[in-house]
């Protein structure tokens, strides 16, 4: 009879208690992994939307640019430097950008915008904004045409709810019918009617691409022109009228409200900063903190110009870092409370288990079982119980996590609006299975180990004679 088998049998001596304890560990594990996955998923979405799509994980910029992001703190673009950075193994993409603030006008509507001068070729590798190019739009005119079509009339209610909605691809558009899927032929017809013109920029373009919320605000469409007014290099005025060649729907709502993409050459011409850029933005393959630091150090070794700084996204975007940190802290505090409740549940079981069996412990020790063997046997019971709870928790939790990491929950209605207004994409993604899942299991096992200190102490101090009297 192995200790394991004995532990197994002891567990089923009091089935109800074991089931209750295993269930509490199961629910705690399930809840912890799902909640943690939601948390980490939302962080990676935030990072993806704002760091990968816009900031870049590392930037090379003028030393004065962080404090004062003006055109005077730009520097001469250097193709050789760009190539050297690109050759660092962890560097996924590097792109030069020129940023300036400007006033965009259309008719009597104006708005402050961020003009982003980009090199379309390297930007495609960096953030690929072309991916977000709007290809379909449910304009009132489209809805009216649909209402006249008896074939599509039954879908009018759903479509009307999405008046003026824009879509980057057919899959996104198909999602509005997720509750009641439609046939391919109906979808094809809707796509035909709602297709809009537009393309992304090329290096020598004389036009611009607007973000979708900005375009809606200014009531502009592809083919219209936008007037940009701002201040150029060394006090020169920067004014221009630019045709809109495309509209993109940037996932980050904050950027989607205010970005105007312009070819780098055109932006330099607009601001009168010939061959100067605001920064090189760099994206990485491995974005872990450790790799980020190592890659930043490698880049620092290449950048010899004293007036240039190499900054990581955490140094540049303290607000996002603090946002993540504070959310992480509150999430951890919640998990701590959850684990505390479960811990006392486990401890209760352990105390009952020990008190019920103290006589038996006395018998075993009197027969010649060493106390450490008895402790081991009891510890095994607790670990088995914990492993069952954790195992079931993983069994249910991991498929949920994996599914929602591939198919994030898209929020709708007021909640979606609220999130959008706060600058977040209305998505609830989950982080795919990784170390954090196993971490929850380890925490539960540690709790069991702490709870097992009680029987350990009890057995060490056990007086055989008094135990036998009970």
């Amino acid at each position, binding site marked *: 009879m192995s200790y394991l088998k*004995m532990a197994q*049998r002891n567990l089923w*001596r009091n089935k109800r208690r074991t089931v209750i304890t295993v269930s509490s560990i199961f629910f705690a594990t399930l809840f912890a992994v799902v909640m943690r996955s939601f948390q980490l998923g939302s962080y990676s979405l935030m990072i993806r939307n704002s760091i990968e799509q816009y900031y870049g994980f590392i930037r090379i910029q003028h030393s004065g640019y962080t404090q004062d992001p003006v055109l005077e703190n730009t520097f001469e673009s250097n193709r050789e430097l760009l190539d050297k950075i690109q050759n660092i193994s962890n560097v996924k993409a590097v792109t030069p950008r020129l940023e300036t603030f400007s006033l965009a006008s259309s008719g009597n509507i104006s708005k402050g915008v961020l003009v982003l001068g980009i090199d379309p070729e390297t930007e495609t590798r960096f953030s690929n904004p072309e991916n977000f190019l709007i290809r379909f739009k449910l304009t009132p005119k489209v809805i009216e045409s649909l209402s006249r079509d008896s074939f599509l009339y039954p879908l009018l209610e759903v479509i009307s709810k999405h008046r003026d909605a824009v879509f980057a691809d057919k899959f996104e558009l198909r999602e509005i019918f997720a509750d009641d899927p439609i046939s391919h032929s109906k979808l094809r017809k809707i796509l035909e009617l709602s297709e809009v013109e537009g393309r992304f920029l090329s290096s020598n373009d004389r036009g611009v691409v607007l973000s979708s919320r900005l375009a809606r605000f200014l009531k502009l469409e592809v083919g219209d022109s936008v007037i940009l007014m701002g201040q150029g290099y060394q006090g020169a005025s920067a004014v221009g009228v630019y045709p809109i060649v495309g509209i993109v729907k940037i996932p980050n709502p904050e950027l989607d409200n205010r970005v105007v993409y312009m070819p780098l050459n055109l932006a330099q011409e607009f601001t009168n900063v010939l061959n100067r850029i605001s920064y090189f933005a760099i994206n990485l393959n491995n974005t872990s903190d450790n790799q980020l630091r190592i890659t930043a150090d490698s880049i620092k070794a290449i950048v010899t110009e004293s007036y240039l700084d190499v900054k990581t996204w955490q140094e540049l975007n303290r607000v996002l870092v603090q946002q993540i940190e504070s959310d992480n802290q509150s999430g951890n505090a919640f998990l701590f409370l959850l684990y505390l409740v479960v811990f006392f549940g486990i401890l209760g079981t352990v105390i009952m288990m020990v008190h019920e069996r103290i006589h038996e412990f006395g018998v075993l020790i*009197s027969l010649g079982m060493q*106390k450490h063997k008895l402790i081991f046997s009891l510890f095994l019971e607790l670990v088995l119980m914990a492993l069952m709870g954790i195992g079931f928790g993983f069994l249910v939790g991991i498929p949920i996590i994996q599914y929602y990491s591939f198919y994030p929950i898209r929020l709708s209605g007021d909640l979606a609006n609220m999130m959008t207004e706060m600058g977040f994409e209305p998505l609830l993604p989950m982080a795919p299975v990784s170390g954090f899942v196993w971490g929850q299991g380890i925490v539960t096992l540690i709790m069991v180990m702490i709870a097992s200190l009680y029987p350990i102490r009890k057995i060490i101090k056990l007086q055989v004679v008094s135990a036998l009297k009970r």
Partner: protein
Amino acid sequence: MAIIEVVSLDKIYNDSAVEVTALKNINLSISSGEFTAIVGPSGSGKTTLLNLIGGLDYPTSGKIRVGDVWLNELKGFRLIDFRLHNIGFVFQSYNLIPVLTALENVELIMQLQGVSAKERRKRATELLHRVGLGDRCDSRPSKLSGGQQQRVAVARALASKPKYILADEPTANLDGKSTETLLNVMEELNRDEGVTFIFSTHDQRVINRARRVVLLEDGYINSDTFN
């Protein structure tokens, strides 16, 4: 030579406000192969004496020698190890491990001793046959009668090949028939294999079968009679 030598043994309990003298100046010598009953009224110190001889408790003063070893000098894991290899126990309420079968209960002691699985299985089966329970090897204690459980307890006590077996009121919870069967088994083991048995009892049926009766009264040995 005596296998157990008790010299000037005193046991005083002072856990409560009142000091209780359980045993006073006990001198006793038990030889190998004895079938001894320690008798006396409740509170006379029978169980206390058995606990001390069994190394389950420490005397307040005096000494106990088992073979060449002074039991009162052993502490902690050495004492537990000594019990494992030298002393067999039979308790009043059987005290079998409920999650183990009869065979596994008997095997457990040998497992603790480090006997190989094959050998302990063989010996446990033999012992259960010896106590008349060869057909109940796979039964859990809850499926056995009180008498059967006590016979399993005897087989378990024998499993470690102890120098002696201590049985604390082994028949107290048994009916007449079961008591008779158990006594027959123990008597046979004593007679045929020379196993030393020391009982505490106030069951007259057991006293009648004992070859030596030590009468305790108020912690003193009142009489020590060989039949």
